[in-house]
């Protein structure tokens, strides 16, 4: 009888151990961890391409952005708080771009969780979002980020060797552009 049960028990143990890393990979990006590996399409707009320091076509990964620090906002056109915070996040972009030193070091992107290209386009137009936004229609990036609620902010340091380190992440509670920029500078060590 015991022998009959062995394969089942082994299978259960195998499933538990095999599932664990998959599960861990989908955890919310946390300070001290790394960004989820996601492929984004290289923007068609020359302005956005040059903002991110990318060239050519196809896809890129976030650490390939030419920057020391990348701020990622996971948003949705359908999310009331994202809508409310949109002008304040635009202001963050403006603060960075107005500073000749910081504009070379910090880049900002948005990922529209479950949003189609049209939906991302509407959000971009409605709030005149000046930084690149990417649709995540099938929620694949959202899943890779541990299905966070929106808006979710991730600040990551990009190292010389192309590796990355999450230095800050937060759900909602956007404190305004000035305070958030200070937080970015402090947590990333840029200041």
């Amino acid at each position, binding site marked *: *009888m015991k022998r*009959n*049960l062995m394969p*089942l*028990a082994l*299978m*259960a143990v195998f*499933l*538990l151990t095999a*599932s664990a890393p998959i*599960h861990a990979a989908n955890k919310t990006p946390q300070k001290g961890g790394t960004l989820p590996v996601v492929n984004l399409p290289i923007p068609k707009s020359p302005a956005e391409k040059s903002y991110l320091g990318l060239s050519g076509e196809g896809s890129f990964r976030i650490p390939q952005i030419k920057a020391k620090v990348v701020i990622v906002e*996971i948003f*949705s*056109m*359908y*999310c*009331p*708080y*994202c*809508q*409310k915070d949109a002008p304040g996040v635009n202001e963050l972009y403006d603060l960075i771009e107005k500073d000749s030193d910081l504009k070379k070091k910090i880049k900002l992107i948005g990922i529209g*969780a*479950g949003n*189609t290209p*049209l*939906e991302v386009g*509407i*959000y971009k137009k*409605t709030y005149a979002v000046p930084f690149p936004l990417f649709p995540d*229609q*099938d*929620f694949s990036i*959202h*899943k890779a980020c541990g*299905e*966070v*609620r*929106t*808006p979710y902010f991730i600040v990551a340091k990009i190292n010389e060797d192309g590796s990355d380190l999450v230095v800050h992440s937060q*759900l*909602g509670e956007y404190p305004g552009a000035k305070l958030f920029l200070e937080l970015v500078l402090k947590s990333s060590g840029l200041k």
Partner: protein
Amino acid sequence: MTKRRFLRLAWVAGVLSIFAFVSGAYAISEAFKENIYSLGTLKPVDSVLKVKAGDRAPDFTLPSLTGENISLSQYRGKKNVVLSFVPAAWTPVCSDQWPGYNIIKDIFEENEAILLGITVDNTPTLHAWTNQMGKLWFPVLSDFWPHGAVAKKYGILRSNGVSERALFVIDKKARIRYIDVHDINQRPPLEGLVSALEKLGK
């Protein structure tokens, strides 16, 4: 022995099911905090439509959140009407649908359309729920009593008493021009509704 073996099997099946479970794809806005009640993945569609494109839209009168009654017929000859039925307040995908429509008033206006949001919830619940969405520009109607009567008329009342996640585009002559009874677990991509609206003028 058989019984013990069965129990072990059940245990393994249980373990398997935990990891096989795929949560429905939605992104909950922080605006709703911890107030969203997750239902897991539901049967995509659980009703049989009683209307089709080209039919005259069945008229109805329902109470709105502002206290007045709204009839479909009051828009006849004046405005195209989009009916957005969502299954229930405080559920994941629904909470993530109307806030999007709330920022595309211009698209509705360009196509001379009004949006009516409808659920089978009663008005106090709808009031509390829609308050989390910011100020909505479109009327929200309660199909609570007789329960789900309008949803039933259109053939989108599910067996458990909530409505489908359905969109109807009705032209100024009260003809149904577009129907999307969507998989209840997913938000309809905006592309479908916008192209249906843009076809109205043609």
